């Protein structure tokens, strides 16, 4: 039986489906027997999912305007050379 610490150290690979079949079976056995680790596994999976669904970041309008103006100047300067 895995310890909870061993389970935690493999959790990311388990959620990313990167573990070997043998390790996966051990991890699955652990969460059927350890309610705490089941909760941690389930809520970590949901954590990843809520961030995947997060609205894409918007850039502040003033930062965007200055970037576009600066890049335009850069492109014009490159063309002159």
């Amino acid at each position: 039986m895995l310890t909870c610490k061993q389970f935690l150290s493999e959790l990311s690979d388990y959620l990313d489906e990167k573990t070997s079949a043998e390790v996966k079976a051990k991890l699955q056995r652990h969460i059927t027997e350890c309610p705490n680790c089941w909760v941690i596994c389930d809520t970590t999976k949901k954590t990843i999912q809520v961030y995947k669904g997060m609205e894409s970041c918007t850039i502040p309008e003033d930062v965007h305007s200055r970037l576009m103006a600066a890049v335009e100047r850069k492109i014009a300067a490159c063309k002159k050379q």
Partner: protein
Amino acid sequence: MAIDTTPAPPAEAPSDELDLVARAKAGDGAAFSVLINRYEGKIFRLAMNITQNREDAEDVLQEAFFKAYEHLAQFQGNSKFYTWIVRIAVNQALMKLRKRKSDRTISLDEQIDTGEDMVVREVAAWDPDPEERYSRDEMNGILTEAIDGLLPIYKTVFTLRDVDGLSTEETAEVLDLTVPAVKSRLLRARLQLRDKLTRFFKRKGDDAFAYM
């Protein structure tokens, strides 16, 4: 809105990307602007994550796109344009940090893991649909506040890997970390975020109980 628990598809570069890069290489400024519009938000967020300073982040953003434009000829299309420009932006951001603390070399790998950040403090089942409890703005506020509370290296690894959808190998490459270093930071970031979000999303009536 229910939480989608199906695995997200791997992030693919949009199919028009190579064409846009080719046109930009040929001097088409409009094509380069399309690439900027596509990635400026992510690059700015990344620069904020690393520098923790809006002014520096804006400098990094501009310098990254300048450098990308100057070196477009070197972009071979073997990687996604996004991973290429992320690598440029990370280097620019690290240079900013070095200038700020000119007496020592800084890398994203400098923070030593003590193991204490692996501790799980709150274990409680979540509401099946926590997003129903909050408005979209409140939800975004909660997620942003939680991620802002992480150390820069955890924030950066989590954002690239789990929000932007880069692979572990791509994340390692752009941050100049080893694959095991990315994995260990990703695990810590995920566990810390889970801990922070549990305070908001735990099922009503469930008390957290001690773990380990």
